[in-house]
């Protein structure tokens, strides 16, 4: 038995829910945090979920920024996303492809080539995990310890 009353109630509730949805979508989007909480790297060998907060705060391993993000010209700078410099870079981005794009004096740069992003990550992640002897270690059979296909 579907009465007119039922219909009117559904209409009224649906309109109200629609208004709530529009307000919530428009006014309360999930903000992108200033410092990443978790990062997901989509790679050819599968995705890698990296818990940035766990590595960088006292909730976890409390690493300093410069333990992973390197210094620039010997000075600490505001950490930037690794993908900004390490290729492959975002399409159309106006960023240097080599240290020598900005630094005129080649003598002041030890290694002008910027390491590929995957090599940089592998070196960084595996190196640290091996140093501490915890978590996924290096080895050709250990890809699936981090990469999820």
């Amino acid at each position, binding site marked *: 038995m579907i009465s007119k009353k039922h219909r009117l109630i*559904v209409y009224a509730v649906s309109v109200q829910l629609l208004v*709530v949805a529009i307000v919530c979508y428009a006014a309360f989007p999930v903000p992108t945090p200033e410092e990443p909480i978790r990062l997901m790297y989509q790679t050819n060998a599968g*995705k890698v979920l990296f818990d940035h*907060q766990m590595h960088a705060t006292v909730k976890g391993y409390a690493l300093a920024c410069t333990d992973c993000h390197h210094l620039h010209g010997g000075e600490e700078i505001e950490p930037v996303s690794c993908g900004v410099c390490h290729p492959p870079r975002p399409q159309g981005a106006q960023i240097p492809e080599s240290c020598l794009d900005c630094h005129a004096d080649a003598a002041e740069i030890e290694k002008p080539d910027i390491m590929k992003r995957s090599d940089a990550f592998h070196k960084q992640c595996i190196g640290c995990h091996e140093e501490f002897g915890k978590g996924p270690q290096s080895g050709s059979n250990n890809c699936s310890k981090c990469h999820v296909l």
Partner: protein
Amino acid sequence: MNNAKKLLVSHAPFWHIGSAVPERHYNTIIAALPAVLMGISVFGVPALAVICLSVSSAVGWELLITRLSKRPNTVGDGNAALIGLLFGMLLPATATWWLVITGTFVAILIGKQIFGGIGGNPFNPAVLAYAIVRISWKNYFDIDAQLLNIDFAFPAFNPLVALKAFGPDAISQLNLGDLLIGHQIGGIGAVSGLAIIVGGVYLIARGFVRWEIPLAFIAGLFITAGIFHIVDPSRYAGPIFHLVAGYTLLGAFFLAPEDSSSPVNAIPMLLYGAMGGLMTMLIRNIGAYPDGVIYAILVINLINPLLDKIRPKALGKAA
């Protein structure tokens, strides 16, 4: 068994007791609310937006499609709202608005109206819609990737993905009690097994869901997961983990027992539920998807007409 009093019928006029299709749908919506509220408490305002948009857009599509096809307006029976609510409960909290609207369109049109409306659908519309949009835009259903920017007070990774990719060691740190309460990431309405059980018990107690399907689903999953675990505990997680993780309980209490896509007799219901649990575990343990509930339910929906053939013999003889 043959209670003589039950067979007594007084003469006309009769009075309708007021129980009808809408009551069933509204009660199912009420039963789902604890799980929805738990989801909103875990994920915050974005989850509220998804649920509200899912319900309202499903009702909107129902109204539009019944108008265009010149069918009776069935918005008042609450079925569209229920489909919208269940679809929203399956989504990640950060689902974009167009994904929600497209999903409810698929649920109402392809899941329900294309088969003639309520009672004619061979598949659970919300489940079918989820499967279609998930295949179409799989990255939007990657729970880990979708919830990167939300800070949680518990380990924030999809436990079923971690289990499939890294094995039982990866989930050994998780407390099963915490998972049951809702300290896990997943679909908005699927994170709190406890809230789902509360709603499910209410539906069973009120007679809107027969106990056979949820119980057989859980038993089928439990036994299958147990066998896998006993055979190789280093590769397969235990049955309790599978019970409290992912869409298991939502599937058992709210998705599998959908009216027109589930059997009506006791033995078929038991078989239907048990096969759902079995298929879920087969997909989770040896299939490609981390969570098999959605596809398991589609499969048992498919065999539902066959199971319905198992029925008591009719009295009397054909001439």
